[in-house]
């Protein structure tokens, strides 16, 4: 099965929640110097709710789609949901069979999320 499923390509070509939040509660950046990918995640918490979550950065289709899908899932959810996002969640969310080397691309947004 191709890594480049319709879902992945859709999120890569039309990333959701792409951009910065002017008055974010928190923001964190991560990078992978080996391939030059970098992602900055922005989050705005209202009470216990994730009112906004966005990302900026550059990277491969997998890392960009992963960030787009992750933010789409989290937006509007309770902030407790942040702790539930893990490697297993990401793999299931993407729905593709990532090899040992490409999994790092998919997990880069998670790394940023964990720092928030």
């Amino acid at each position: 099965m191709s890594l480049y499923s319709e879902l992945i390509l859709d999120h890569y070509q039309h990333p959701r929640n792409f951009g910065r939040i002017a008055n974010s509660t928190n923001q964190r950046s991560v990078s992978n110097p080996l391939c030059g990918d970098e992602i900055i995640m922005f989050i705005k918490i209202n009470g216990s709710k994730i009112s906004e979550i966005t990302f900026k950065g550059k990277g491969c289709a997998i890392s960009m789609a992963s960030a787009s899908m992750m933010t789409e899932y989290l937006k509007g959810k309770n902030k407790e949901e942040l702790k539930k996002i893990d490697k297993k969640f990401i793999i299931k969310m993407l729905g593709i069979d990532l090899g040992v080397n490409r999994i790092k691309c998919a997990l880069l947004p998670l790394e940023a999320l964990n720092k928030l």
Partner: protein
Amino acid sequence: MNFINLKKDFPIFKNIPDLVYLDSTATSLKPKAVVDKLVEYYSNYSANIFRGVYKISEKATEEFEETREVTAKFINALKSEEVIFTRNSTESLNLIAYSLGRKIVSQKDEVVTTIMEHHSNFVPWQVLCSETGADFKIVDIDNNGYLDLGMENLKFKSSNLKSKSRILNLQNIVTRRTKILALTYVSNVLGTINPIKQLIEAAKRINPNIITIVDAAQAVPHLKADVQDLGCDFLVFSSHKMLGPTGVGVLWGKEDLLKEMFPFMYGGEMINGVYIDHTIYKDPPHKFEAGTPAIGEVIAFKEAVKYLKAIGMDKVREHEKNLTSLCFNKLNNNFSGKIKIFGPSDVNDRGGVVAFKFGNYHPHDIASIFDESNIASRAGNHCAMPLHTKLGVNATIRVSFYIYNDGSDIEKLVDGLKRVEKVLS
């Protein structure tokens, strides 16, 4: 020699008939002769070497030492004792940095390397300099991927190799304080073939005591390398990049230097006598071969050397030059304006390594889409981050050729790139 037929010598093509292997710069495929020799050792005489006074140990020892002789002849070393087996080129370079670097380099000295090095010929010298306080100097490249010695029109094109005057400007970089000049023969990203012989001659004119170290990991597999002709003090390469097994590297060094260096590791097989207060080491090469080596792999390595010798290194070089030329033509014709190939545009000055940028597509996506058509390529900085920083890119996609590649592989590469465009845009 009909190169098209060489695929038949490589068992992997029987098992994966549609494999388009374009990653020989990372490691090469193995011919049946090498695989058979490995199996022969493990099946027929899998004993430890040197001290066994029984038949299969003696057979293994003879086979092991024969590889040393075959290897020495292949690079035209004066003596087989100058050939040391390590794990890989990386270990060979680290060995020199540790065993010689720490002996001869101090605060007032300089170590010179280049921006196009693999990390393994960059970081050991960077660390040595930071530990000793010596100056770490780096030769830059020009916009065409040639070493740039800071003088206009000073390009080390192989077509100009005979004109020694062009290299005179090396004195802008190498001085009488330079203890070590460590540089690559062929770049693993740009493909640039550096004029090693002329550079060494020029460096030794400036400072006769300079130690010259050549990383030939991308050269010995692909062209005729003659250590006496090059005039270097050390030259390193890896078995696995030249059709041989993994786990075997070669360090060639001049005997008098090897004798004065510190040992690298201490232990079995490198010792003549151990006393409570001191130890006496063996002479090179055994001084640097502590512990049980990769016996079967060293033994099988000679089959790789013999295979290359039977083809002839001039023919290997010619074949790769033709493939690179074909690759340039096909890429430029099919993807004009969308592709940027790094390194010299003249195939006479470069090996069969082609790193490029393709549109705005991410190298990892390109490599993954290639893989869906069984094209093996490589994406990233290829262990040459300073070079990629210099080139202003984070990562490149790289394809590389060897004797088993042919025109059909280039066609598939073109199809692969067309598929990248189709999938991602």
